[in-house]
């Protein structure tokens, strides 16, 4: 749910990065953080365990500039990917405006991707959302690794509705901004469709 503030002339939107454990959600955010000008970003917050596994969420506020006189801010969140943190994942999806699904392209993580995608749908439905109606993009991460599932197969299993999709290597940053841009664009177009009062 975007927050349109006429008093401060700001639009705030929430983007959630979803996906199985260790697929690179936090790495996506870290890259965005590193490559963004200091005046355009806030502090990145990571609520993680001692072994750097996300415990609750990562949070990165981004100010992208103005549209029609309104400052456009995106709040980027990641969910904890590990299966047993499901209660936390549900909370983070509250009020989401757009979702990025980060898939781990490695063969051995194929089942984990499918399970996470199903979990995303179930958790969204619990909040009254339908994935098909939300701004949504899919990122096939870790494309630099040798043991990737062929793209065709990933596409068939994870993106049957052919939403915008990107291959990526979040560690080097390949595909990271393309993914973010695609979901942000969908969110703004949704805002255009709905108008300010919708």
């Amino acid at each position, binding site marked *: 749910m975007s927050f349109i503030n006429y008093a401060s002339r700001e639009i705030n939107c929430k983007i959630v990065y979803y996906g199985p454990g260790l697929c690179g959600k936090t790495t996506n955010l870290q890259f965005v953080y590193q490559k963004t000008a200091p005046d355009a970003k806030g502090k990145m917050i990571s609520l993680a365990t001692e072994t750097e596994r996300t415990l609750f969420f990562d949070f990165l506020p981004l100010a992208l500039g103005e549209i029609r006189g309104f400052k456009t801010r995106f709040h980027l969140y990641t969910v904890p990917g590990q299966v047993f943190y499901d209660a936390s994942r549900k909370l983070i999806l509250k*009020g989401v405006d757009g979702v990025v699904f980060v898939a781990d392209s490695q063969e051995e993580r194929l089942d984990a991707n499918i399970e996470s995608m199903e979990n995303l749908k179930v958790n969204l439905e619990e909040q009254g959302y339908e994935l098909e109606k939300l701004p949504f993009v899919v990122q096939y991460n870790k494309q630099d690794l040798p043991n990737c599932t062929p793209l065709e197969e990933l596409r068939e299993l994870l993106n049957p509705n052919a939403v915008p999709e990107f291959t990526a290597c979040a560690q080097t940053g390949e595909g990271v901004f393309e993914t973010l841009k695609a979901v942000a664009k969908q969110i703004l177009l949704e805002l255009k469709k709905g108008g*300010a009062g*919708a």
Partner: protein
Amino acid sequence: MLQPQQNSFVMYDEEFQRISAVIEKLLRESNAKVIFLVDKNGQLIAGCGETEHLDTTSLASLTAGNIAATGGLAKLIGEKEFSILFHEGEKDNIHISIVAQRVILVVIFDHRSSLGLVRLRVKKASDELAIIFQDLAVKAAEMEKTGNADSPFAEITDDDIDNLFS
């Protein structure tokens, strides 16, 4: 946008002024250091007091996360919600409460105030804020009904969006 959850939360100038007046009064009357209002989704709505040295965006997001987690705990034990949270520090304390089941009121205070005083004043301010948010909801619903002819976003172009990332 058919689902209510996807609706935008809109803040207008008039209500923003009224909200600011209420929290500024609360700041004075409770002897607090900082007060801010956060949407349950983590968006900062308004703030006052010694906010200049504070990262209010992060505070807003973490407060919402905190409320969401505590709300999850509440449900697990069969409560609807925990409407007040209190964190006591060595110097500063945080009092967090839910207003009108929708927004989160955060009061940061030190030894110049007390938990009792803050609770008392927050209760009164919450009632006033609830009325404003009710008005805001009515106004937003009316705006929706009358259409969005004057929406500043109806005219967004692909170029506008591309420019954000240039």
